[in-house]
């Protein structure tokens, strides 16, 4: 459905997006993940035909974004970073305007506006002026306008920004509902968001794709190359001797001393390691105050992939 090949966007000498390639199948939900300034918005703007790339191509539903911009735009619903709203219009009028602008057939406009209002739960504010709505409601109107033309492709730039936790959950449910019917790309820096909604994630950092995979296999690959879990230990008093002992335990990958009395021990995830750690700490007699084990989550994957010293990870174990 969406094909991106060698996309590059330079602002002067600075490359905001650097030779990115990926493709999205019909009905797929893909999350763009990356820290601030990674190039997520830039990539989305190019796909929507908002601006041209410096080099490379993008196509949507077989239409090249630059050769056939109108065909592409007709098929895309786009929520920019700042929702494009006319304050002096009511929610209903605004959605009707967007539907007409997107060249929706006359006969379908009324029902599509209803559907968009219903899906984003704007029923109670439909007759209100947009300028009088709260930020969260405006964000929902923004999502609503992306949906209103019933586009094949939805491109949502940080769709849950500014929403309260309940709304965030509702938007995620909405995206899950839309899955299959629309092809969706959404960007976010919030990990639970992709965990909750996306089938596949593309992690971008400094304009480059550092990882692209389904959620599970991404997690799995990182665990294989790195650590599968981390054991936190708090002791009465720390000693270098203890650290050396901990490092000797089979299955331990790294030991770090934090805050004078806490150790963080990366392990391969096998059960026995935590037991062995407990044994070592107890026999060393430093006083075991706390011990807990946490599985690695996507947050760690993300941090590992986007902190520069770990970028080699991609070339090494990940791909």
């Amino acid at each position: 459905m969406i094909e991106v090949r060698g996309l590059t966007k330079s602002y002067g000498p600075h490359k905001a997006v650097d030779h990115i390639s990926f493709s999205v199948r019909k009905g797929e939900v893909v999350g763009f993940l990356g820290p601030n300034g990674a190039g997520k918005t830039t990539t989305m703007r190019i796909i929507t035909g908002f601006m041209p790339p410096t080099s490379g191509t993008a196509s949507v539903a077989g239409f090249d974004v630059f050769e056939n911009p109108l065909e592409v735009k007709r098929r895309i619903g786009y929520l920019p970073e700042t929702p494009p709203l006319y304050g002096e219009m009511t929610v209903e009028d605004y959605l009707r305007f967007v539907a007409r602008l997107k060249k929706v057939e006359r006969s379908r406009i009324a029902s599509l506006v209803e559907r968009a209002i219903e899906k984003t739960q704007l029923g109670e504010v439909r007759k209100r002026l947009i300028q009088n709505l709260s930020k969260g409601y405006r964000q929902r109107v923004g999502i609503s306008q992306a949906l209103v033309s019933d586009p094949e492709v939805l491109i949502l730039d940080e769709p849950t920004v500014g929403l309260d936790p309940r709304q965030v959950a509702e938007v995620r449910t909405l995206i899950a509902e839309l899955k299959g019917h629309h092809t969706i790309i959404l960007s976010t820096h919030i990990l639970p968001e992709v965990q909750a909604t996306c089938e596949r994630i593309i992690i971008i950092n400094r304009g480059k794709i550092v990882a692209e995979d389904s959620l599970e296999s991404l997690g799995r690959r990182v665990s294989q190359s790195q650590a599968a879990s981390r054991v936190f230990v708090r002791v009465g008093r720390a000693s270098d001797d203890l650290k050396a002992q901990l490092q000797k335990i089979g299955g331990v990958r790294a030991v770090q001393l934090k805050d004078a009395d806490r150790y963080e021990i990366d392990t391969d995830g096998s059960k026995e390691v935590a037991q062995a750690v407990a044994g070592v700490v107890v026999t060393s007699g430093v006083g075991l105050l706390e011990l807990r084990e946490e599985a690695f989550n996507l947050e760690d994957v993300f941090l590992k992939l986007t902190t520069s010293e770990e970028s080699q990870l991609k070339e090494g174990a990940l791909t």
Partner: protein
Amino acid sequence: MNGAFIIASKDLRNIFVSPLFYVVSGICSLIWFLLFSSRLADFIFQSSMQMMQSQGRESGGLPVHFYVIFPHLSMVNLIMIFAVSAFTMRLFTEEKRNRTFDLLLTAPVTSTEIVIGKLIAGVGTAWALLAIGALYPVSLAFFGAMDWGPFASSLLGLALLSAAYVAVGIFASSLTQSAVVAVVLALVFNVMLWFVGVLADRSSDATERTIIEHLNVGEHLQNFMKGNVSLSGVVFMLSLVFLFTFLTRQVVESARWR
């Protein structure tokens, strides 16, 4: 072109629900009313004096068109320059500030459609105001003193010229994000248009003079007001509209490449 009408109807709607239109047209009507009524009173006084002096003798009286309507329409023209700049300043600056420009640029409409849409909305608003200005002379028809020919051709001239002011205003609006800067730019451009006429009077070279005279807005408007609808006048004003609309289109198109 359908996209142009969709954008135009949105803009017209937003202009007519905003207080700006009513404030500006209220102020304009007040100025016009004051000037028109004092001029009319003056005219009635003068012509009755003349009637008394020419007692018994046959008298044609003073032509109301030249003493009342003509100066009034000149005033309408002057005010339109400012009023049109005020309406058009926000047509692009607001879209840019609200980021709704992103919506237009990612919608399946061309840059030309966007600009034509803005032009239709601006011209519609300007003509609504012009209609208010034209109401004052029309009121004279009740007294049977109306000379419809020159009045109609004056209105045609003003309608065309205000469309040119709109095109200029929209162009100014496309250049900046600030409504204030847009107004100032629009006024500067309009003043420059009118200054071409001053150049004509200054120039010594004969061919140069005739060329510049063809570009003289004031000269063309005078002709319309005298009741002469000339093809060159119509073409001149339409080409102003076309020129500035074309320039605006180029600006909008270049915004896509940034």
